[in-house]
């Protein structure tokens, strides 16, 4: 199947520092990819480059067959949604209004809400399980609930590609399970999902494919269990990883130790 989003040998600088040294990565329709890597490996930079917010100095990013830099901004935001860790959103904004802003690329500055817009907003609220919070101001929510509202905004864009930077960062275990279930539902509906995930066992349990980024380069890629137990992962995280298969569990349990 063809890639919906693809980075080809992308070299990206932030300021004077070259952060990505020629990264290639592709994402197919209805695929769930976990992007993992140690701190400062360039994961956030890669996600923003894939989203078209950072321009590679060399190489390119291709969205649905066309360089992302050639896309019209609104059209790009209809095809691709980016959800980053919750910044300080306006505290008095209601969840409903926040999610409705996800329709901006569809509506522009002037078009009123159509039935289609309303359906997308309600669908996003329902999918993330925050219908009851719709009328609440963001300042009255927990960090985890605000993160779900941010995800709902991304779903309201009705994108073909969903990129997430550490979506589970503020969430307790129950909310994390819910989050990855929501991402899986989006994937099942045909959306290509790529998420930066720090919790490696969680990433392995969720993703169909894992990409390991280490110091600005992809050093391993493939089935999550294979990537996690690879020597590249051990080198990247400076740990030794062991997988323990247990009868009755779909995924192995992992243990991490500092190398002796």
């Amino acid at each position, binding site marked *: 199947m063809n890639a919906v989003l693809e980075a080809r040998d992308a070299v990206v600088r932030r300021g004077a520092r070259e952060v990505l040294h020629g990264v290639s990565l592709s994402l197919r329709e209805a695929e769930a990819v976990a992007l993992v890597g140690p701190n400062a490996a360039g994961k956030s930079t890669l996600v923003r480059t894939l989203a078209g*917010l950072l321009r590679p100095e060399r190489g390119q990013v291709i969205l649905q067959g066309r360089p992302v830099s050639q896309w019209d901004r609104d059209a790009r935001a209809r095809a691709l949604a*980016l959800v980053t860790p919750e*910044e300080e959103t306006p505290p008095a*904004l209601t969840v409903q209004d926040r999610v409705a802003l996800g329709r*901006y690329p569809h509506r522009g*500055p*002037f078009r009123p809400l159509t039935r289609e817009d309303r359906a997308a907003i309600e669908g996003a609220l329902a999918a993330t399980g925050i219908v009851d919070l719709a009328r609440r101001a963001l300042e009255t929510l927990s960090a985890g609930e605000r993160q779900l509202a941010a995800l709902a905004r991304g779903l309201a864009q009705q994108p073909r590609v969903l990129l997430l930077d550490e979506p589970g960062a503020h969430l307790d275990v129950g909310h994390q399970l819910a989050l990855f279930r929501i991402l899986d539902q989006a994937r099942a509906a045909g959306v290509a999902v790529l998420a930066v995930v720090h919790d490696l066992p969680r990433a392995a349990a969720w993703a169909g494919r894992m990409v390991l980024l280490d110091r600005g380069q992809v050093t391993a890629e493939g089935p999550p269990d294979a990537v996690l137990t690879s020597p590249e992962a051990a080198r990247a995280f400076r740990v030794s990883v062991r997988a323990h298969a247990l009868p009755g569990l779909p995924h192995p349990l992992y243990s991490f130790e500092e190398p002796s």
Partner: protein
Amino acid sequence: MTETRRRALAFAVLAAALPLCLCLASASGSVALPPGSVLSSLGARLGLPDVFPLSPAGQTILWTVRLPRVLLAAVVGGGLAVVGAALQSVFRNPMADSGLLGVGSGAACGAVLAVKIGWGQTFLALPIAAFAGAMAAVLAVYVLAHAAGRPSLHALLLTGLAVSALAGAGTSVLLVATEEFRVRTVLFWLAGGLEGRSWTHVQLGGGLIVAGALLLLALARPLDVLSLGTEEAAALGLPVHLTRLGILAVSSLVAGAATSVAGSVPFVGLVAPHALRPLVGPLGRHLLPAAFLGGAVLVVLADLAARTLSAQLDLPLGALTAFVGAPYFLLALRTHEARA
């Protein structure tokens, strides 16, 4: 009460309060006019029968002194409040206001320069010089902040602060170098006030303010997207830098026009949006019009107080808005801190 009803109620109260305050302010002053006659005289202009005619002197006072002043107070207050609300979204900070862009200090510097040159008594010279000063300061902030590429909001803020300080220094030097009798004319302007403003001021300043405020209202939705932060706004397809630039430019025009006709009127841009946001919500399409009405009411009443509190002299309007605004703000800060 649901938020929709609360918002509708707030708009109803504001929409009723503004004409009421306009009428009250037109009727009150050193010569009191009967409010009924004021209404009747206004109605007569619209072709209604003048049932309670004013005396000829009353007519003159109403139409050449009171009305231009009262209307100017309304548009100045409304304009400053809309700009405050817009800048608070752009800077994602409830303390943002046109002062951040160097508008006030630039206008003051321009006005003092005009007086120093000896244009203090020339009709409209002061507001035009003030407007030029405000625009020069904003341009300086923009050019300096962009010297090292696209600036962050933080860099923009600090540049505004530095340019304001520079303009303030220029103003003090000019004031010291100006003859004492001329300083008096500009002091009234610096303190903020609407004494002796004519229909020409209303047409020039008011026209620019209302046009700018409408333009900001048209940008309400991009403003909402911008308030989510640079990255999220860009991810939603908004041309962030262009939109921000457009809003800053229109805001500078509006605030520059307001300051050039009324002098410094502090705190309106902070208090009106801050007080109304809990009632109408933070979305631009609700907050901007509400802020316009609220700011208008606030300055019309402040100007009324400036004219009538003392029988001997006109108090400076800017001082009155600060007397109301500063304590309000301290109080709001305390409740906010207590909640956090």
